[in-house]
């Protein structure tokens, strides 16, 4: 049975790209949310194995959304995805309790590695 992903990103391009990159893998995208608020609202209903979360989004940012998700669902496995490579941001993401950090542009090998790490 495939592991179920919820993609949270204000750009639909990221969902399309992740779907393609995960073809013939043990993962599948089952839900797409275009902002943090939607992710928080839908997590319970979707019950994904992993959430990929963009950081810079309109409304609450990805780090804040991840924090809320982890407060409400401590079992949530979250992989942060961003093009903003900044040590401070990575440390913030780790401190919140997210499982991995993935840089854009996302490539298949890096994506699979980050998802596998999140499942450990």
């Amino acid at each position, binding site marked *: 049975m495939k592991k179920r992903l919820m993609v949270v990103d204000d750009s*639909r391009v990221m969902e399309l790209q992740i779907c393609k990159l995960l073809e013939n893998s043990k993962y599948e995208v089952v839900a797409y949310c275009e902002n943090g608020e939607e992710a928080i609202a839908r997590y319970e209903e979707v019950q994904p194995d992993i959430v990929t979360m963009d950081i810079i989004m309109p409304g609450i940012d990805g780090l804040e959304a991840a924090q809320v998700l982890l407060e409400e669902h401590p079992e949530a496995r979250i992989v942060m995805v961003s*093009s*903003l*490579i900044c040590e401070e941001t990575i440390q913030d993401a780790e401190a919140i309790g997210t499982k991995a950090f993935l840089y854009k*542009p996302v490539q298949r090998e890096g994506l699979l590695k980050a998802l596998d790490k999140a499942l450990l």
Partner: protein
Amino acid sequence: MLTAVPREQLAEIFDQVVREITRQAVGVSLCPNGGVPEGELYTVYIAFDEHFGTSLSFCAERALFIRLAQCMIMEEDISPQDMEAVAKEYLNILCGHIAAQMFPAGKTPVRFSVPAFYPGRYVPRGHKEHIVLTYTGDQMEKAQLIHCIPDRGACGADAGYQTEGVN
């Protein structure tokens, strides 16, 4: 606060990021010093540090935007909506990497707006072109990366203008 960084250093960072990320993200090689984009043009635009009013635009021929989209979402048929969405995501990624490099260079974190997409070659009104880098894609498509700064001599309105290439 991109204007705090010397122009040459800024241009070098822009050039390095645009070529490297374009190659990584979509496998397209951009060679510097190409001709000026012509024909059906589009511009994707991001404002940096609202308070300081600098911005970065990527203006390119339609063929390059289509190819970016085909490579990025791995589909042959690209709708205008796909083209726009990919262009915005592409510039977002470029700006993320530029901001990451600017942090040590300028000692100040750089923030940027949600990208906007325009037909033609867009430059925000009341701004002047500070750095213009010109590229040719490996299928001869032309593009420019344009960094604009406020033109203190101009009477500023916020709306921008398109200068050429509207289909």
